[in-house]
């Protein structure tokens, strides 16, 4: 009897400790980035593009990369919504439920979700060679779209399949077609979930480095055309850290802080939004 209680206590303590460990790792990471990044952060960092010799420690900032990342992630999120929403609505509203096609697509999206971003980068690169594109904002957008499409689809799918059948029936009974039902009733009902999916994808797009390494190129300028190369925040961090100059490395920490803040903001917005946009949602 005693042994059982002892075992229970030991395991319970171990579980609490490992939970604590995992939660505290996140806190430690955030604190490390904050402590190292804050001293090197100044206004110029986020309001200026690199001047000559920025990577040798001269004047400038990473505005080009912030804007580049936003363009890149924004563009690919937009494309992914335009492709993903029809896919998910097709799976849930148009296709015969549980048909072989539906099951295959869900499965294949799950598998695509697991593919590493470096592979998307390499594939994007071969695709660009095929299309005759150079490393550019467009190339990066293509690669990142492939990367976030499965995330977008499966996240929306989980929400849209929760839409009650009766709600669809109510709309059909009024004589609405599937198309009208899908794009008015279903989209409104699932709006909070769709927003979450969009923000999740956006965060992924901003934070990913490996897929844009080959495809987006790198530049000191804010891209003014889809066919120009674009710098991205993760790559700026990586390159700054790779230089031998301590002051540039410090800037890498500051840039990492900027990136972390952006990601945190997206996460928090997404959390805050889950409660909103439910005004019209039918329970």
């Amino acid at each position: 009897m005693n042994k059982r209680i002892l075992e229970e206590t030991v395991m319970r303590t171990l579980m609490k400790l490992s939970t604590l460990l995992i939660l505290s790792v996140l806190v430690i990471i955030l604190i490390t980035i904050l402590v190292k990044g804050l001293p090197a952060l100044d206004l110029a960092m986020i309001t200026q593009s690199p001047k000559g010799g920025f990577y040798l420690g001269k004047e400038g900032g990473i505005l080009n990369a912030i804007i580049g990342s936003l363009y890149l992630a924004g563009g690919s999120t937009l494309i992914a919504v335009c492709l993903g929403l029809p896919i998910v609505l097709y799976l849930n509203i148009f296709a015969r439920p549980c048909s072989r096609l539906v099951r295959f697509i869900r499965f294949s999206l799950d598998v695509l979700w697991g593919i590493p971003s470096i592979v998307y980068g390499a594939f994007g690169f071969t695709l660009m060679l095929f299309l005759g594109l150079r490393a550019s904002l467009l190339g990066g957008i293509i690669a990142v779209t492939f990367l976030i499409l499965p995330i977008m689809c499966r996240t929306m799918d989980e929400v849209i399949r929760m839409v009650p059948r009766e709600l669809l029936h109510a709309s059909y009974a009024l004589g609405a077609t599937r198309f009208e039902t899908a794009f008015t009733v279903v989209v409104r009902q699932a709006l909070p979930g769709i927003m979450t999916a969009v923000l999740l994808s956006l965060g992924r797009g901003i934070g990913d480095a490996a897929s844009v390494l080959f495809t987006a190129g790198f530049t000191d300028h804010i891209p003014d055309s889809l066919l120009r190369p674009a710098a991205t925040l993760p790559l700026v961090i990586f390159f700054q850290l790779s230089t031998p100059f301590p002051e540039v490395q410090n800037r890498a920490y500051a840039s990492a802080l900027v990136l972390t803040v952006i990601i945190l903001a997206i996460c928090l917005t997404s959390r805050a939004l889950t409660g909103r946009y439910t005004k019209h949602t039918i329970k």
Partner: protein
Amino acid sequence: MTTNPHIRADRLNVYYGREQALKNISIGIPANRITAIIGPSGCGKSTLLKSFNRLLETNEQVTISGSVSVDGENIYGQGVEVTAVRKKMGLLSQRPYPLPMSIYDNVAFGPRLYGIKKKQALDELVERHLKQSSLWQEVHHRLNDPASSLSIGQQQRLCLARGLAVEPEIILGDEPTSALDPASSQRIEQRFLELKNDYTIIIVTHILRQARRLADYIIFLYMGEVIEAGPAREIFEHPKEKMTREYINGTIS
């Protein structure tokens, strides 16, 4: 039975997968009357109702044979537009399912589908149908509030208004009061009695007293088969079949 039924089912068979839910149903539903489909739960009442507006086929693995004619036209025939069939019928489900939009937009949803875009025409329609379902008094000052903010009883009346706004000929009610409190149920029943002058109304109910109160015509369904159908008074007072009598007396349920 009236000579010219509004809806007529002829040798209608419905299968869910291999299981037969409706067996060889041949009935007529009289126009401008309230018809109640009664029977124990799981006997196929809702299935029969949904076969009238072709909502059945949105379900998986349903096979339908036989025919259902509305105004003499087989709705399962070739080249029939399913949306046109459904437009002819308003549906009230067991629980009200307002659409995820404002009260106003719920009522205007149908008319907008059919091309009414002018604000004035829509305003007028919304007001008329909300009045028709006796909801106007309660909501006219907050038409832009979400429909989900209404009480369940109000939601069901909103669903009625929404259905009426597409100007149907027939109203289908699938146990439309089962989720409502007694007062709300009574209001819905009251509406039905008023509406039957202009509409053919079919309700599914397992509440015999409700059928007695409302129905002019009764269809008694048991295990997917029509046991007996006829004018309400006959069925309740002089049932021909033993099973009907037992059901009405509460011996079987």
